[in-house]
């Protein structure tokens, strides 16, 4: 899998920041979309599922933690990186407990963010492959059991 196959959704109410960061990631060959609040982001997820989400915490309307919870409920495979100017240690703990992949503070170094996105994508792929292998194994065992009973 190449970097250009990695789909990223940036969710941040600071439009200028989201758009500039999106441009920088696109120049690094990621496929990048943007959303400027939680409701817009969840709506976009119904149309197309990204591999990795970069999510701000303090946004108007839905708080980032609430968005994270909704994402993990409906799309457990998507890996979420929190990128916030506000985060406390407790926020980091809460985010990880809710299934967040990583927690970065603004302003983040672009190389660090790039590295984290690739790591999050790798995690997603490993979990997906592991789920497929488990499902196949389970199917095989059921067939074996049936054959033994006959």
């Amino acid at each position, binding site marked *: 899998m190449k970097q250009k196959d990695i789909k990223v959704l940036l969710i941040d109410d600071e439009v200028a920041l989201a758009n*500039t960061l999106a441009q*920088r990631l696109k120049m690094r060959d990621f496929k990048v979309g943007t959303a400027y609040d939680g409701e817009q982001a969840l709506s976009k997820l119904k149309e197309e599922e990204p591999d990795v989400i970069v999510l701000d915490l303090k946004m108007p309307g839905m708080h980032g933690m609430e968005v994270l919870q909704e994402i993990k409920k409906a799309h457990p495979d998507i890996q979420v990186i929190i990128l916030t100017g*506000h985060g406390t240690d407790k926020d980091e703990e809460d985010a990880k407990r809710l299934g967040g992949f990583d927690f970065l503070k603004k302003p983040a170094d672009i190389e660090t963010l790039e590295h984290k996105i690739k790591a999050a994508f790798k995690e997603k792929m490993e979990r997906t492959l592991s789920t497929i292998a488990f499902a196949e194994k389970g199917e095989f065992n059921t067939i074996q059991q049936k054959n033994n009973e006959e």
Partner: protein
Amino acid sequence: MEYDEERDLRVSQLSFIGNILAGFTHEIKNYIAIIKESAGLMGDMIKLGKKSKNEPQEYLEIIHSIEEQIEKTNDLFRYLNRFSHRMDNELSTFNVNETMEELIALLTRAANQRKISIEKDFQKDILPMNNNPSMLQFLVFHFLEEKITKLDKNSRLIIKTESANGSTVIRIIPKGNLLDADKEKGYLPYEIQDKVVRQLGGNISQEKEETVIKIPITDI
């Protein structure tokens, strides 16, 4: 344990200053993040980008974005500086519109988080006051914060100032649904509210949904 009004007031004041600073730092961090990413983008365009006819224009747009953020940062520092110096002297002569402007600048982000817009309706030629500006800001802040917390999304909060009958009148007017409308108290305990208003020589009243603070204009 005896109720220590003075100690509770000081704790509330420190909490107020902490809230203001937290809001300020969050706002500044966002502006700095935008400046950093914009500068980084220019660097990327030089190191990684493909040449395009529009390149000079793209660079100019990024430079303009950086200048905009720097201006916003400067404005916020200016408000914070003014706010800080309000505490230099217990009594001073000041323009109440300016003190309210500082609070609005430092509370705007919190209001935006809840999709609430704060509007100014200031009397332009309002008479200067001779009083404790920091204490006045402390009092008004709590009423604003309470309304911001209780108003429904997409509501408005109007701050109106006027000189009337020898007093400066500050009205805090919520326009929208108030959640928990039956619990119309400020987050500041009543005893502290009362102590502060007495120190300012004024009074607070509720006129339907409006909170009205009246402070006498002392002869300068």
